[in-house]
């Protein structure tokens, strides 16, 4: 009797499901539009891909940039479409990734005193995640991670990539990557939420780490919506990461986060239940309590889109910047008043928190439009700071000349 009841229930469920399927084809909004309020202003907002043409070197917004006294910005390289994440090789090559518009891996090389952009690989699937480690370059797409061995010896023709890990979910929404090798010699790889706001299975909303051969995958942090920037604190070895919070809740909420992992594998940072450490999600958060999740070390502004970040340990900048975190904020697509699109500095307070966040590079919002959008920052060996700008297809170099 019990068995029969189950069969009947299952049959009914299947029939219902198939009828629904036949009548209404699966029609879903694009992932980023889910949760959008019925509002004519919100209705006109959508994520903006980077402009498909790089800005000419003499048109770049260098003169409009504002920096603290003593700092100077210059064009490091122009005409590098969709420039995103940056890494420096042992021989001084700057490796640059890209995303939707370009799908390329670049190298910026010094060719007889002239900087030259070489395209190393193209037609790649959202290849934003790169890391240089002990001579090899790791490249992560939403689907997999490959390695190019001894890459600086093969800039004219890359060697065949070695597959490191091919079991990433592969989703487009928040599937593109930022990757980094930690002080534990493991590769850190995030998998973001496959949506704006939703519950998802164990493959998502986490930062994982794995051995450099792709084995031994383990969870480092949970409840992470979309991190595309992290770094390891030189003194403590702690992983700090930026996290982009949900869209459409309000123009002013929730604030994006800067987080720190002090107990790898044991901490949950709240998504999709608690935002900015402050409040439960209006739909999914019922029955959840923000005190059950780790609060951010700093809040970085609503929809400000903090992407790449680095601790500063170079020798060029004034002493106050030692151990501080430079953060590239891409600027909001779903805020009416454009802001951010800058580089800010977060100063750790030495007790696991952040004492203050200061503007560093600003001036890239004009007439409520972005005239530049920082995507990543990288401290060069000489202590200067590179800032990539995917909107203009350029990389800037910030130096300090004193007083």
């Amino acid at each position, binding site marked *: 009797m019990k068995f029969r009841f189950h069969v009947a229930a299952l049959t009914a469920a299947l029939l219902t499901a198939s009828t629904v399927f036949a009548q209404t*084809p699966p*029609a879903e909004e694009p992932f980023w539009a889910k949760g959008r309020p019925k509002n004519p202003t919100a209705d006109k907002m959508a994520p903006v891909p980077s402009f498909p043409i790089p800005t000419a070197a003499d048109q770049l917004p260098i003169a409009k940039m504002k920096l603290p006294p003593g700092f100077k910005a210059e064009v490091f390289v122009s005409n590098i479409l969709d420039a995103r994440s940056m890494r420096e090789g042992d021989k001084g090559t700057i490796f640059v990734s890209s995303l939707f518009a370009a799908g390329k891996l670049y190298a910026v090389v010094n060719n007889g005193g002239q900087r030259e952009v070489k395209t190393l690989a193209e037609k790649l699937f959202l290849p934003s995640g790169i890391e240089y480690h002990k001579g090899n370059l790791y490249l992560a797409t939403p689907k997999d991670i490959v390695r190019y061995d001894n890459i600086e010896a093969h800039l004219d023709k890359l060697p065949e990539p070695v597959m490191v890990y091919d079991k990433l979910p592969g989703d487009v929404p928040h599937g593109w990557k930022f990757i980094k090798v930690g002080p534990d010699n493991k590769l850190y790889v995030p998998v973001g939420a496959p949506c704006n706001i939703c519950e998802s299975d164990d493959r998502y909303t986490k930062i994982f780490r794995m051995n450099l051969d792709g084995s031994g995958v383990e969870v480092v942090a949970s409840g992470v919506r979309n991190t595309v920037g992290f770094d390891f604190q030189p003194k403590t070895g702690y992983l700090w990461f930026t996290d982009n919070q949900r869209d459409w809740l309000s123009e002013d909420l929730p604030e994006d986060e800067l987080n720190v992992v002090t107990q790898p594998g044991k901490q949950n940072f709240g998504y999709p239940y608690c935002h900015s450490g402050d409040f439960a999600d209006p739909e999914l958060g019922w029955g959840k309590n923000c005190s059950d999740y780790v609060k951010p070390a700093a809040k970085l502004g609503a929809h400000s889109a903090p992407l790449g970040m680095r601790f500063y340990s170079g020798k060029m900048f004034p002493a106050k910047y030692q151990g501080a975190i430079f953060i590239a904020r891409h600027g909001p697509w779903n805020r009416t008043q454009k802001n951010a699109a800058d580089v800010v500095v977060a100063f750790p307070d030495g007790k696991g928190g952040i004492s203050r966040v200061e503007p560093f590079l600003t001036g890239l919002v004009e007439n409520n439009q972005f005239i530049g959008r920082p995507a990543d920052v990288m401290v060069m060996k000489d202590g200067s700071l590179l800032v990539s700008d995917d909107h203009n297809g350029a990389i800037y170099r910030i130096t300090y000349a004193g007083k």
Partner: protein
Amino acid sequence: MRLWWKATLWQWTTLLSVIAMAPGAWAQGPAPRPQAAKPVVAGKATPSPAASKPVIDYSERYAANCAACHGSEGRSELPLVPSLAGQHSFYVITQLFLFRDGRRNDHPASAAMSALAKSMSDSDLRGYSEAVARLPASALTAAPAEPAPPPLDAARFERGRQLAAAHRCGSCHGADLVGGGQVPRLGGQREDYLQIALKGFQSGTRLGYTPAMNEALSGLKAEDLDDLAHYLAGSLRESR
């Protein structure tokens, strides 16, 4: 439905000969109009070297190099060739970029468009896309040339309207189907172009930056796509 190809063979021949006759016409390089051809402003001093850099009028370039197929006001009379009036510069420049990069292989004229785009500089791409964006959308509703477009089929139009609602075309293209930014205007576009675009997206021969369009059309049948195209093409006439 298959007859368009034969019936318009002469038009394609025209297109190809236009392309063949004007190699390099699309390149930015040597083509600036002679200064003498412009009306001389009385009393104006000899231009300084800095001011003598020729300014390229991309609306003129459009008239010379694009209008034969896309229409002088941006309303295409050629089968399968999209109208460009009312289109957004970000969308246009993205398509030109994809053609130039060899990433649009979904249309009978893809190779020709790619060849044109490959001869364009970055400033050409900007100039042409801005010139296109200056073509008023009102051209789409202007009195049609001969032959008059076939009348709307009310039943198919309604089916297409329901499909557009169910598949949330308006999420990105706007409830009024005028698009914006990188998202194209759909209302009033040529029906045969919309058919080929929708089929290309569904089969995966046409790719954008993301699979968004490919995913949006999954599960639709061929006749659904045709009805959808019928509705989108006719929606501007309807709303007039």
